[in-house]
């Protein structure tokens, strides 16, 4: 959707329920996907997604265009909702070192090998520290620009680059050797 069309739709959604419904239809898949990537639990992802859109509905009249896509605002709400969920809990463990990465025998079929690698590399991303994981999911899973990720996470672009760099370095160190062999 072109930028101006999205802005028009968002403006309409401040007064028109159907326009808000159109926004919901457009952004539900990515917000649910992002929520699930953070909590790894279907029921929790549903709760978070529900909270995100209800918060968006309650606050949409206060939303003003800031040069970033509307989805950035929804991602921000998602991150906050996830943080609220874990606040006061000990459910999410920050792993700075030593988390073992999944391993397994390579399959015979190229496609299976590719899928297996994909699954395992994303499993490895799941083991990253919270902020690194968020940055990696937004960059490699949602194809966001660093500027937008920075806006979503409330950090500077430099900080996001640092998070991405540390995450990739960590994956490089910890992914099994057969990954590198298959990359060329």
């Amino acid at each position, binding site marked *: 959707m072109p930028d101006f069309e999205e802005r028009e739709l968002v403006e309409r959604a401040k007064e028109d329920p159907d326009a808000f*419904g159109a926004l919901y239809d457009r952004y539900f898949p990515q917000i649910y996907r992002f929520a699930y990537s953070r909590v790894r639990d279907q029921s929790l992802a549903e709760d978070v997604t529900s909270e995100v*859109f209800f918060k968006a509905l309650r606050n949409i009249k206060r939303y003003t265009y800031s040069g970033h896509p509307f989805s950035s605002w929804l991602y921000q709400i998602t991150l906050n909702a996830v943080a609220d969920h874990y606040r006061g809990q000990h459910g999410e463990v920050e792993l700075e070192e030593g988390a073992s990465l999944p391993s397994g025998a390579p399959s015979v079929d190229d496609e299976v090998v590719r899928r297996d690698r994909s699954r395992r590399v994303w499993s490895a991303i799941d083991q990253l520290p919270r902020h690194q994981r968020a940055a990696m999911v937004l960059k490699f899973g949602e194809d966001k620009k660093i500027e937008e990720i920075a806006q979503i996470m409330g950090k500077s672009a430099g900080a996001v680059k640092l998070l991405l760099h540390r995450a990739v370095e960590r994956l490089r160190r910890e992914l099994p050797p057969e990954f590198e062999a298959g990359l060329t």
Partner: protein
Amino acid sequence: MSNDPELEELFQDPAHREVVDLLKLSRPAAPPLDPNFHNYLRTKLMTEARRTLQPQSARRGFPFSLGPKALAPAMAAVAAGFLVVLGIQIYLQNQSPSSAMVAVDLSHIQNKTNVATAEPIVIPFSGPVDKNAVADTVVIEPATSVTKQWVGQNLVIIPDHPLAPNTTYTVSLKASSAPKESRPNVQPTPAVAPSPVVVHFTTVRAPVPPVNPPSYRSRNVTYGQENRLADAGTVFNGGWTPTGQLIVTRPSGQPGPGSSPAAPATASGAAPKATTDIWLMSALGTPIRILVPGGNFPAAAPSGGVFAAWQVISGSQASLRIWDLQGNLQGTLATLDSMPDRAPVWIGSDRIAYVTQGRLVIVDSHGGSVNTRAIRMQRGSVAGSPLGTLLAVEATDGSSVIDLASGSRNPLPAGATGFAWSSKGDLGFLVPQASGSDLYIAAGGKNAQRIASSPSGQTWSDLNWAPDGASLLLASKPAGASSSASRLMLINVDGSGLTTFASEQEYSSPQWSSLGDLVLFTRQDEAGGRAFWTASTAPSESDAASKQALAEVDRFMQARLKGDRGAAQESLDASGLNAYQGGASSLLSPAGSKYERYYPVTVQLTGSNPNTFLVGVRIFVSRSGVQRSFFEEQLTLVLKDQRYLVDAVTSTPAVPLGHGPTVVSVEIVPADKGSQVRVRFDADLRPETVTTDTIQVRGVDGRPIITRITFDADSHLATLALSVRPGAYQLVVTTGVMDINGVTMADEYHASLVISR
């Protein structure tokens, strides 16, 4: 993700680049998603949005407005003239007055009209209930077999077959308390009292009232609204069932009702290589049920409610099997050493063709080999005629039409490919040329005639017939271009009227639904993948006579629904006025009742000089705001002074609603030999009660005509085949027809039939 300058700049160390390259080639697996969650949350959000977002009576100068496309559904709903939707919330109090209340939010469904016939019914509860007890009490009228599931606190009721159109359904259930918690110091669990929850809703009107002949007219239809069925990569292939649902192949492990990651059973115990499953899906893209774990390339039979597909059984072996639309295995026809790369092909409804090791094999529905001459073929086109008598084959030694009875072979022009048979038995195919493509039609499979050629430099492919056999869709693209430049085109069967159906590029592989109201196609999405979409079709304006007659009927009926006698009488000629004043039927509803809604049951062209139509309308009568009965009128409309007026009327006695199955439509369809009378019911019926004794066509002398009857339980459709002279006949459905709950029709059903050829 292709080249990303940000990543190029950020990661210049080769070791990091390798990891980044791997990540660019990877994508996280799609998360598990309850297919009902999206709609459930949307309903809640929209309820809240309507409460909190106050639309202004006049928009404050915002420079954009809703286009006609966005307003079309609302306009259609208004045009349908249905009931006003009542949004209500029923609160069921706990038996204990001090306990909390559990709400059942029915605002999304209660008294709703235009409800899709193949969508789940979701009843959300705000608190815990005894789920098994609640689900056991669900009763649906008209009788409908359903699957019940709980998704969180939502009771999801999935009809096993599409609901009947034009029908008001009542879903009732008795809620029971949740089991008591025995833990001390815990607040009592909120529970629902045994007050019955009753939901009423009315399904969507039938797409086009049936006119004889034909019932659906495809000429000059236009592209309506489009809808993405699923994201790219989540549906690999698929097609329509005769009842307007979709059978699709999805990657294994996709979420949906009844999904299971379990692999199919194997004969050897070795883990099968099953990476796809076959699903039944609604026309809106809602997964209904998994049909075949490990299945691929489904092909729905033209009738009978079954489909064939390939299923991985062990290692690389795959079996050709037949299932019904509940996923019940009907039989295994063949087993091959590897999974074929194309769907099997139905030849009529009792034989199937497939290609293996460069050879075409034909088997019957029990797996028995059908003796035909040896046909060598590789990737060529193959298609069976709808009656199963002819087979078009692109063999290695040339293309031809084979008569399966005699074995004779009728050669087609060199290079003929892309075969498609119409419902009338005409064969369409394409012949590639140096500068484009030629489109041929072989009426009845014989005497192929070139009817059109593509514009120079354009190639055609993906032929697909409209259900009335009057026009075709095809994909057109510049020679040598990728499918991203493909467009959908529409052309009449005589080669005239070539026009763009969908203006966008990237569209291909059209498939018209059997009712003609939707077209399934694929299009390239933003990320370069190919996704399945549907588009609705808007009927042409050319069918002026029947449209004009139906418009007059609608004007007449709307006046009667409003109680406007003067306006209603304007639609009557002198003879028609006499008929109503003489008591043939009641123009306005009797005191204490209200004509609530109506719809045309059947429309028949009975004469052309002057134009005369016989239109059957069903009128629903309410008392105290509740629809309690219906009756039917047969209106004769005659063209007088360029306007159709009601010239005569007959009516049936009132039939109470909720007292057994009823007929919802009668359609007369020309067939190759004689005619078919298609009688559709609103309820799931006991098939053994649908016979030539209980459904009869009678002559003017009252004697039954000899007919053959078939019954498709999935679509509640009884089809009578008869061969009679043109003239007037009577359809009689007796009270011997029984629904699955053992309830018979309340009264005999009678309808006038006019066979016009």
